[in-house]
């Protein structure tokens, strides 16, 4: 019996690259093909739609908050404390007596901003350091690699706790900074490995043979091919970052009042969970759906951009 896994050693889907004349009509770029495929994927459309909606909420919270008439999250009346959903207040009130719907809407801003900010910063660090490590190798790779290992080895929650407890002010920027400090090694490692694998490819060798400078090779050859996996990973982690913020805030070391974030709302809800479940359900639902959408978006992008699946 041929051992079962040797079936792996088999025929890739034939017929690719067998075009007698290249596909007639417009030039089909790799990205172009990927896009037309994505547009037909319902999962992509739904998740991209939700993500767009969330981004719109982040950009124009006032617009969305005012939809049910009571758009001011700070307009609180203790007499309404923890009341359930009713006309004009679809999510009810929080413990302070503020309209929960407005708070959830405004809460998107801080949470999602942190998610995007951390992702973008980590991505930037990853691109610069990862390219340097992967392309230059040698001492640069070793030094940066060991540094990354140190940060990577730190237990995240513990490390974040220690730093955040000592900070005088904990706002979006400082919390983001802490998250980046613990988040950069993974993405950088990924970037390093994609750069490494592209660097050894024949077309890079051909470019060197033509006389291309290192900078040119990085810019035109390596980065466009190495970025895709890292960008996809970034979209996947955005969701994780938002959960991390919520976790830290829940533990009391994240954002502080008077900031509004889903994490804070979840933290506030924990005491009265059984009596007033709506305090947990609505912010939790929003957080979950947002995270899920980001993650799904990343998934569909990865499937579309994976050249091996074409």
């Amino acid at each position: 019996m041929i051992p079962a896994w040797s079936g792996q050693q088999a025929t890739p889907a034939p017929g690719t690259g067998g075009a007698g004349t290249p596909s007639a009509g417009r030039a089909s770029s790799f990205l172009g093909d990927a896009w037309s495929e994505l547009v037909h994927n319902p999962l992509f459309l739904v998740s991209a739609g939700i993500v767009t909606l969330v981004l719109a909420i982040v950009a124009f919270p006032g617009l969305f908050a005012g939809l049910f008439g009571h758009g001011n999250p700070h307009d609180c009346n203790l007499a309404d404390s923890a009341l359930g959903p009713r006309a004009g207040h679809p999510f009810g009130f929080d413990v302070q007596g503020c309209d929960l719907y407005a708070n959830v809407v405004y809460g998107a801003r801080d949470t999602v901003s942190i998610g995007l900010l951390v992702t973008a910063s980590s991505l930037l660090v990853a691109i610069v350091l990862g390219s340097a490590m992967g392309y230059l190798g040698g001492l640069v790779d070793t030094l940066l690699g060991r540094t990354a290992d140190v940060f990577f080895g730190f237990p995240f929650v513990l490390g974040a706790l220690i730093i955040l407890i000592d900070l005088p002010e904990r706002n979006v920027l400082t919390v983001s900074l802490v998250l980046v400090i613990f988040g950069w090694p993974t993405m950088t490692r990924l970037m390093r490995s994609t750069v490494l694998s592209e660097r050894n490819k024949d077309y890079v060798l051909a470019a060197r043979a033509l006389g291309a400078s290192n900078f040119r090779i990085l810019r035109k050859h390596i980065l466009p091919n190495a970025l895709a996996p890292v960008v996809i990973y970034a979209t996947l982690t955005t969701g994780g970052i938002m959960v991390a913020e919520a976790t830290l805030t829940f533990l009391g070391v994240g954002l502080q009042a008077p900031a509004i974030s889903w994490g804070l709302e979840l933290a506030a809800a924990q005491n009265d969970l059984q009596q007033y479940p709506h305090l947990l359900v609505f912010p939790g639902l929003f957080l979950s759906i947002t995270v899920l959408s980001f993650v799904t978006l990343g998934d569909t992008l990865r499937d579309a951009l994976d050249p091996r699946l074409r």
Partner: protein
Amino acid sequence: MPEGEPALEVRNLCKEFPVHRGGILRRQAGALRAVDDVSFSLARGEALGVVGESGCGKSTLARLLLGLEKPTAGQVIFGGRNLFELNAQQLRAARRRIQIVLQDPYTSLNPRMTIGEALNEAFEIHPGLCPKNRRQARVQELLEMVGLSGDFARRYPHQFSGGQRQRVGVARALAVGPEILVCDEPVSSLDVSAQAQILSLLRNLQRELSITYVFIAHDLSVVRYVSDRIAVMYLGRIVEVGDKEEVCSHPSHPYTQALFSAAPIPDPTLRGVRQRIVLQGDVPSPIDHPSGCRFRPRCWKAEDICQQVEPALHGVTGSCLQAACHFATPQAPHLAADRERA
């Protein structure tokens, strides 16, 4: 025969890769001599075929010739200057004179660039080659020169077959107008029909443009088709070199004879009739090779002297060949049922 200075001269080229052993304290335990004291010289317009099996160092040789690797010793000289003594700027200029065609058509083109952009890159790196307004036309010319339609410039590599991609690779190498073209196994990854097309193309281009070729392959019949002279490599050394006709009609080194003997010939009438030299054992690892002559463990002529003294490349009596063997004897290879040679 073209007179004067050789177009390409290689002197005592060596490339060693250190081999490390040990875990924490990695010591160098030895060296892998991928290319070991290789020398040859080529006249303008001449084509040298370099043939050898895996581990013989031919790919490393290709990279050294292009200056893509730094040698442990030796020189590569063209235009009167040693490639490895040039500074960065001079090196870039030198790259206009020597180019390479790579083996794998599926990875030698950037999947995110159109082939027009890939060809245009040569002009972006060397702006003096072609003024901006002429570049598009020049790209079309290059494509037509290799037998592809000019409007393919807007297409991406994945829309082409292996043979077509390899043509693009050839066009890219020709874009800078090189005098010397190194072909590193350019047809090994191709099908029979694509191989024939590319070989034909390469031969015709060489004649039309008078380019000096270094054509590297593992297939003797392919090498013979394109070359004027043939060098046979084994474990980093040239073991036989000479005029193509001489090498093919009367190879003198045992390894060359074995290569001829093993080469499959598409003629069923030779079955059982053709005398075969079947070598014992596998191609040895380039890391620890035997003392004395490297070919000794697989050679049927081996004697004591072969273990003690490594033979240098020297002229073979009775022919114009040079071989690195103590017992080199020119002998016609058994290629046909009736041994008549054209």
